[in-house]
């Protein structure tokens, strides 16, 4: 968490100082590339983990259902909250 906050603060500082330069415009593109790179590395580390791939057949379905339950629960709670507190408006759009 402190790592996240540190890099966030450093980024805010850098962005503020560089706000008049063209460098800031490239962050969108660079961010996209970093996400793709991250997911590639993520996939590679899962693929290279033989034990984990092996356990997929035993626990894969169960894990997928738990994941979907979590996602559905989040959507449900946000829907309820929007209905109750934010008058059904679009939230943080």
């Amino acid at each position, binding site marked *: 968490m402190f790592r996240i906050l540190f890099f966030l603060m450093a980024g*805010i500082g850098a962005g503020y100082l560089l706000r008049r330069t063209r460098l800031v415009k490239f962050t969108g593109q660079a961010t996209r590339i970093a996400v793709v790179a991250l997911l590639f590395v993520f996939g590679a580390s899962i693929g290279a983990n033989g034990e984990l791939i092996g356990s*997929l057949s035993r626990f894969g379905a*169960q894990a997928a259902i738990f994941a979907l339950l*979590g996602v559905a629960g989040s959507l*449900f709670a*946000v829907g309820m909250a929007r209905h109750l507190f934010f008058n059904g408006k679009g939230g943080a759009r």
Partner: protein
Amino acid sequence: MNAIKESLPVFAAFATGLVLGAGNMVPSWLLSHDLPMVLLSLLVFMAGMGLGAGDDLRTMAHGFNPKLLLPLCTVIGSLLFSAAGVLLFSGRSLADCLAVGSGFGYYSLSSVLIADLKSVTAGPEAATELATVALLANIVREMVAIMFLPLFSKVGGGMAAISVAGINSMDVCLPMIVRCAGDRQVIPQALFHGIALEVSVPMLIGAFC
């Protein structure tokens, strides 16, 4: 349609990595633990740059916002639905199901914590098994969030996208949440959501194990 185009490169990168990794075709430096950390730090840094370069910081300072209660929604919703696992899987206790649901996509920490805490009460074998389920479930949650973020954002707005992303709303999913919402204004909320959940993961898993 646009939603699919958005996540396609991400999915392709993940699938390619998976295949190459399984085929032992990636160099070992790519599998080091530091690399994802460096990339994540880079992402957060760039999100900060976007925030620092805009005027959002000033508007951010405007007092309490009820939207800050969003992490609570994510926790309540995820746990409520995860509890249904007790009806679906015989042999899983309610506490087990809630522990798996308490990861909110934070697969590394949640699986380690479960393996650690559960082995004291249920023995190492049962602990490893539940930790594996938690690891896979939270990886899948992250993947579902990344793949379908544009869709969730379109249907349920920025708050739905942040909530589904769980812990990843502050790093991996952050760029896409911002792009889908079309407004940097969501950054503070997404960061706060991720940090609040990160703090809650050890506490919840500790309570359920």
